[in-house]
């Protein structure tokens, strides 16, 4: 588990500034939720943590992000290797459609040149168990991953992300495409996973942030075309009961957003 320090990060798409001057420290073994209205830059910010932002043509960032003491934007750092340390789960479940359930979970390990069958077998089993999917799929590991339900696919993606034992797990609105029961399962899963991983979750569901997170960071934008900014970050209980900023209070009480 590692600590993520975001330091004066601004993120751009071409000339458009999507996020301005965000600094925050994300502690290990805790769940940090990023909340805020649509377009506030929370998804963009989370994508700067695994250097995924820069794969969009024309996108770049200012500022820097540290993983413990390492500057992941440092001159000598290979972004591909950064991403192998930081797992990510996306908004829509995106298992590789032609791969079997087994191959999906093993895909990250195979990218890391793991070839030993026993190692792969045990990693796949461990990850699927951790993702709470093992009992449902253990008898059909060779079926295509695309044949599972939406909620199962998302848990498969979580299993795929944690199979490589990343230091940090990023989740970008992991439940927004799922039904309430699947959402509940993923939330339970997040509770279990936080003992092992530093977890950052983006959500625009405030109840979800309240349920799963220890720390909450609230983002907002001043208006259309303005960059998103971090307004405040604190213990989740404090953000939802006694926030320091009136914009946060307006948002969490449902008066805007």
């Amino acid at each position, binding site marked *: 588990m590692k600590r993520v320090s975001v330091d004066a990060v601004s993120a751009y798409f071409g000339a458009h500034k999507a996020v301005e001057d965000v600094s925050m420290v994300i502690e290990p073994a805790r769940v940090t939720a990023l909340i805020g209205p649509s377009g506030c830059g929370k998804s963009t910010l989370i994508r700067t943590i695994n250097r995924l932002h820069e*794969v969009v043509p024309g996108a770049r960032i200012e500022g820097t992000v540290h993983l413990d003491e390492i500057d992941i934007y440092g001159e000598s750092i290979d972004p591909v290797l950064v991403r192998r340390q930081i*797992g990510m789960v996306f908004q829509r479940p995106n298992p*590789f459609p*032609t791969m079997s359930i087994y191959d999906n979970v093993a895909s990250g390990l195979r990218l890391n040149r793991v070839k030993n069958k026993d190692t792969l077998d045990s990693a796949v089993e461990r990850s699927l168990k951790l993702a709470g999917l093992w009992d449902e799929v253990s008898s059909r590991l060779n079926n295509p991953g695309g*044949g599972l339900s939406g909620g199962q696919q998302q848990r498969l*993606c979580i299993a795929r992300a944690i199979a490589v034992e990343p230091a940090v797990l990023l989740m970008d609105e992991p439940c927004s495409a799922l039904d309430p029961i699947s959402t509940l399962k993923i939330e339970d899963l997040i509770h279990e996973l936080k003992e092992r991983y530093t977890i950052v979750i983006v959500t625009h569901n405030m109840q979800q942030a309240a349920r799963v997170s220890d720390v909450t960071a609230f983002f907002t934008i001043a208006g259309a075309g303005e960059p998103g900014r971090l307004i405040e970050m604190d213990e989740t209980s404090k953000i939802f009961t006694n926030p320091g900023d009136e914009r946060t209070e307006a948002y969490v009480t449902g008066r805007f957003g």
Partner: protein
Amino acid sequence: MPKGKAKEVARAETSSLALQLSKKRRITGDAIFANLNRASGIAVIALLIAMIWFVLSEATPSLRHYGIFSFFHTRWAPSEASLASSSPNPYGIVQFIYGTAIVSIIAMVISVPVGVGVALFISEVCPKKLKKTLTTLTELLAAVPSVVYGFWGIAVLVPALRPAAGFMENTLAKIPGVGGFFEGPFFGFSILAASVVLSIMVLPTVIAISREVFSTVPRDHREAAIALGGTRWEVIRTAVLPYSRSGVVGASFLGLGRALGETIAVTMVIGNSVLGISWSILGQGATLASVIANEFTEANQPFHIESLFVAGFALMILTLVVNVIARVIVARMGAATGRAS
């Protein structure tokens, strides 16, 4: 308002509403459009049937005279034909079917890997500025008339292939089993030359469709592979290629369809040897299309032109079969990857 009048107004209102909702309001424009579409659809089917009918009826006298199965041998010798005798049939077409198949297959073996590679370069690797230029250039390849490819084949390719052919004769020909395919002597005008010309001609089809297919790979899948720590090649291998498999197969078969029927360029470089099968790709041959193009204007022997139509009919059947197989494969792969093709 008197009672009677109110009723009248109400009736007028309902009738005008009935008018507004009446089927007749929509009917004329829609009917014209629907019938026009239907007519076009029927016209396409009718044209295809008429085409098959035409070729078959032109071939019929020869088919009647010799019998269908007598065409299945490998010697085409029009000068031996006579009105009086119907046996042996001098018009064997198996060597043309073989020629068509082998030329197309070699062309695909060359152009599919190259075409997919070029398409991957354009869609995944090359900088944005170069993308447009490259795409246009590859599309221009398709605009070059096939007779020009033929000239290029004669003037440039045939001499250039000589060292390659020499290499094949000296090395590949010595491999037991498959050596026969590479035995000399090299004639210049050859199956090999025709295959290479053809591979360049089908390249634009393979590139254009593969590129299109790669661009439909959802960003989700790419990002999944990137986020797992995939390098560019690993992203291509884990996300792009598997998703595109059925499309690339489709592209290959469309290219194959073009290759099977390509006539002039092949006729110009294949050597037009009609008297048997050359198993060596360094030897000369002929295809169903090339023999028709080569002999049509001087077909003056008995049943000569009718027998060329038999070859034409065989070509039609061959392309039809290939297209059906292609559709079945693409549909099956599409179903397996959970995407419509």
